[in-house]
C-alpha cells in the first residue's frame, strides 16, 4: 500500500506517539545495505583475472644402438679383411703376431666403428669363426685346412673400456653387459685378433687353397 504522494506505509508509520521505532530502524538498515552494496559495486569494476590453459607434451626415444659415420647413421659396420698368404715358407702358419698385425693393417678403419646406444647400457656379443678352406676338407694328419684365432673387441665407454674376447674354438659367442654407455664421440669399437694358430701340434702344414674364410660378428644391443 502506498500513500497518494508515493511514500510507502513503512515510511509513513512513524508518527508522534506511535510505536514506529522498530520499523523505522529496519527500513534504515535495509536502505543502508542497498547503498553499501551499490557502493561496493561501483568501487570494484570487473576484476582483472588471469585464466589458464595447460598443455602436457610427452615424447619418447626408443632404446637402440646405431653406427654413426659423420652425419650418417646405419645399423652395420665392417669390412672384408683379405689376410693374404697365411703360410710361411715352410708351409706352416705364420706366427700369430704377424697375422694379428696383418689383420689390423688390412682391416684399417673398417675394423673400427663409432657405435652409440640411446640406452644406459648395452649388451655386446662377439662371435669369431675360424678361417676354413672348404677345398682342403679331409686333410690328413699333419695338415690343416683350419686357422684358429681369438677375436678381441675393445669397447670404449663414457667411463673406462671393456675388452670382450671370443676364441674360434669356443662353443658359443661371448656376450656380456657393458656396464655403461658407449662413448658418444669418436671410434669406440675396435676389433683385433690374437693367438693365431692351427689346432693340433701347432706345426701342421696348411692345405693350399684360396678359399680360406672366416668371420667375426660383433653385436651391440640396447640393454
Amino acid at each position: 500500500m502506498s500513500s497518494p504522494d508515493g511514500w510507502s506505509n513503512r515510511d509513513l508509520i512513524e508518527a508522534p506517539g506511535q510505536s514506529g521505532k522498530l520499523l523505522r530502524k529496519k527500513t534504515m538498515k535495509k536502505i543502508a545495505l542497498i547503498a553499501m552494496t551499490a557502493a561496493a559495486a561501483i568501487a570494484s569494476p570487473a576484476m582483472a583475472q588471469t585464466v589458464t590453459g595447460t598443455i602436457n607434451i610427452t615424447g619418447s626415444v626408443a632404446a637402440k644402438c646405431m653406427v654413426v659415420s659423420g652425419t650418417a647413421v646405419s645399423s652395420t659396420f665392417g669390412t672384408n679383411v683379405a689376410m693374404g698368404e697365411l703360410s710361411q715358407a715352410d708351409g706352416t702358419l705364420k706366427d700369430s703376431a704377424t697375422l694379428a698385425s696383418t689383420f689390423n693393417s688390412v682391416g684399417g678403419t673398417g675394423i673400427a666403428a663409432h657405435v652409440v646406444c640411446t640406452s644406459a647400457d648395452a649388451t655386446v656379443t662377439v662371435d669369431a669363426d675360424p678361417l676354413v678352406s672348404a677345398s682342403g676338407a679331409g686333410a690328413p694328419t699333419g695338415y690343416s685346412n683350419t686357422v684358429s684365432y681369438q677375436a678381441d673387441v675393445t669397447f670404449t665407454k663414457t667411463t673406462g673400456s671393456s675388452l670382450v674376447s671370443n676364441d674360434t674354438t669356443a662353443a658359443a659367442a661371448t656376450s656380456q653387459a657393458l656396464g655403461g654407455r658407449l662413448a658418444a664421440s669418436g671410434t669406440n669399437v675396435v676389433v683385433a685378433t690374437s693367438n693365431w694358430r692351427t689346432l693340433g701340434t701347432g706345426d701342421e702344414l696348411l692345405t693350399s687353397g684360396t678359399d680360406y674364410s672366416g668371420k667375426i660378428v660383433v653385436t651391440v644391443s640396447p640393454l
Partner: protein
Amino acid sequence: MLLGRNSAKWLVRSAVTAFALTLAHPAMAQSATITAYFRDPALTGYVYPGPANAIFQIPVTASVGGTCGFATGQAPNATLFHANIDTTGWSDQVPFTAECTAPWRIAVSSQNGALKNSGAAATGYQNRAPYTVSLNVASDSGTVSAACPVAEIDQAVGSSPCSFKGTAAPTTGLVIPRSFGLSGSYIQVAAPAYSGPDVLISGTYNDTLIVTISPAS
C-alpha cells in the same frame, strides 16, 4: 490515512539520505537531516515547519572493466604424445577461443624449457630435446603471430627475448587486440627430428606449457 488524520506532523526522518549521499560521494562526507511533512488537506491554515518532501539525490556511476577469458570448454588444454622424437619430426596445434572485450595479453611458460628426460646424460648424450612454440591468435585486427624456441619461455629463465614468456598480466605477454569468440586461434608446438648435438638418451620426455591470458592495461 488514519494516522495522517491523527497527526499533522507525520514526518519521515531522512537521516538515510545523508548516509546514501556519503556512499555515493566519499569525498563529500557531509550529513544533513531533512524532515519532510505531509500536508493533510483536512488541516487548513496550519503552518508546517518544514518542506512537503525530501529530495534524495544519489548520483550513481559505474564502469565496465571488461572481461577476458577462454570460452567455455575452449581453453588450450591438451595432452600430446609423439614417439621417436629423435628420428621423427612432430607438430601439434592446440586450438583455443578467447573472449576478451578489450585488448589483452597472452603468455606461455614452459616447465622444463625443453622436452626433458629425467635420466642423467653423460658427455656426448642429451636428455633435453628442443622444440618451438608458436602462437597464432585471431583478433578484431587480424591474426597476431609469434614464435619462440621453448628454451626462451623456460620458467627458470629470467629475461628472454620471447614476447610471450611468462604469466600473462596487464603488462606481461603478447598484446592482442580485442578478440571475442573468434575462431582460428591456436598454439602450435613442433620440432624436426632431433639433429643434435649429441645423442638423445632413451626414455620418456615431457614438458608442460602453461598458457595464460589477462586483460591488458
